[in-house]
């Protein structure tokens, strides 16, 4: 599903964000990426969504080779990947329903399809009855659920969640993680970055640790150990 082969990203001569990262993620896997701030987690995710281009190495996602991807096809790639951001990135002057519907509108779904799909997805993330609320009126946890609903409404094969719990209280954070697990059970590959030790320990999933732009550990059913140097 996701294949990275010796991927390097250099922003300028003095800063190598990622250094020969190789990684393989199977379909329907749930992978957690941990690492200190500045370790390169966000850069890795930006390469996957093609917000940045790798300096060298190969990236193939869902059969799409990024080196052969033309600019005009980047939107098509992004439609296949759902992304959840730490800062939610909701449209402030659209309500909950409209924010989710927007993801469908921009790719040309019909109105009936949108009316049918959006309430179902809002139900999955537990926001039934809050369709008319504006993002300003929601708690952080609720906003993140809107963002998740928007990310999964197009039923992507891959969901990338970049520290989705970073701005949330622990009790909301766990709710969000449970939703991600639910989505993963439905068959979506989930890539989650987090700082939260509790979450990593409770999830018992594959954990990849990044330090100074390199993968320093990649273990199944692992616990939180950002300092490890073993592979």
């Amino acid at each position: 599903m996701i294949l990275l082969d010796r991927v390097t990203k250099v922003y300028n001569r003095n800063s190598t964000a990622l250094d020969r990262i190789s990684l393989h993620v199977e379909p329907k896997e749930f992978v957690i990426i941990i690492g200190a701030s500045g370790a390169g987690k966000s850069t890795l995710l930006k390469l996957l969504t093609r917000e940045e281009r790798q300096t060298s190495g190969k990236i193939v996602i869902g059969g799409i080779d990024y080196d052969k991807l033309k600019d005009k096809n980047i939107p098509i790639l992004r439609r296949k990947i759902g992304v959840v951001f730490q800062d939610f990135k909701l449209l402030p002057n659209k309500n909950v329903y409209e924010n989710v519907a927007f993801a469908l509108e921009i790719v040309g779904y019909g109105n009936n399809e949108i009316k049918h799909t959006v309430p179902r997805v809002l139900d999955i993330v537990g926001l039934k009855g809050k369709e008319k609320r504006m993002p300003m009126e929601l708690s952080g946890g609720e906003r993140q659920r809107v963002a998740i609903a928007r990310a999964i409404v197009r039923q992507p094969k891959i969901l990338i969640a970049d520290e989705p719990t970073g701005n949330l209280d622990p009790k909301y954070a766990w709710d969000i993680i449970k939703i991600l697990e639910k989505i993963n059970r439905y068959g979506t590959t989930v890539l989650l970055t987090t700082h939260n030790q509790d979450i990593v320990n409770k999830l018992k999933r594959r954990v990849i640790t990044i330090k100074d732009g390199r993968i320093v550990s990649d273990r199944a059913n692992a616990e939180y150990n950002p300092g490890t140097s073993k592979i």
Partner: protein
Amino acid sequence: MNHRLITLGRIIRAGAQNFMRNATLAIAAIAVMVITLTIVLFSIVTNAAFSHTIQQITDKIDVSVFLKDTVTPAQRDKLLSDLRSTDNVKSVEYQSKEDVLKQQQKPTDENMDLQLALAQIDNPFPATIHVKPNDPNKLQSIQNYLEKPEIQALQSSKTTYSGDKKKALDNITKSTKFLREAGLVGVLIFAIVSMLIIFNTIRMAIFNRRDELQIMRLLGASTSYIRGPFVVETIIYGIVSAIISVTVINSLFVVSGSAFAASNFGLLDIGFANNYFRDRFWIILASQLVIGILIGAVSSTVATRRYLKFKSSK
């Protein structure tokens, strides 16, 4: 329903919404565009009116040949047919002594003395041939023919070449040429200024909404889906401006038409300009719309271009 149609509908709706939200920014862009389009329209109409005036004056330029009373009908006919076959001759018209007299006898307020004088003597007027040239600037061939000694012998007095009219015409042509060129330069300057202002308006709109655009980008909106509403917005500027400018010119004609009904302002024949405008109203409106839409679409496409590029550096 067709996927593309749905998307197009959404783009147009979003553009219309942006137009309403950006009202204050829109006013500046529309104002400049109205000025541009009004200048364009004004120069088209005045240009047509000047051309019309020049044409009218040109038509009045002719060569008058005055015949001696002794010229026989045979000589006269020969002269007429020779003139008709001369280069640059558009038409040849013969007026007999009687025709000229009749023409002069038409009483007006100003020629009372002439009328009195005419009543007391025989017909003093010579038979006259009016030769109209195709090109008033090239009378040489006609002149050459008329100045042959045998032809001169038939003439009672020297041929007149409307020389002073020609001079006036040259002046008019020169000044209208200047006015046309000035109009063209004005149109170009204002078109560029209005493009720049629209360009900046759109850039400000993009800047205000850059977060939203970034989100759209990340969600996989295509470039045309993001750009579309901006282009639609500026096309609306173009349409509104075209309608305003045609309305402005139209009301100018309504006001001036009633105040100076069919009068002349020197070279500018208001009546003609008015008719010209009315006869071509729909074509004028359509071309104004096309110009407005083009200015809007081009400037917004350029303005959005650099903001919607994907990062392609490695």
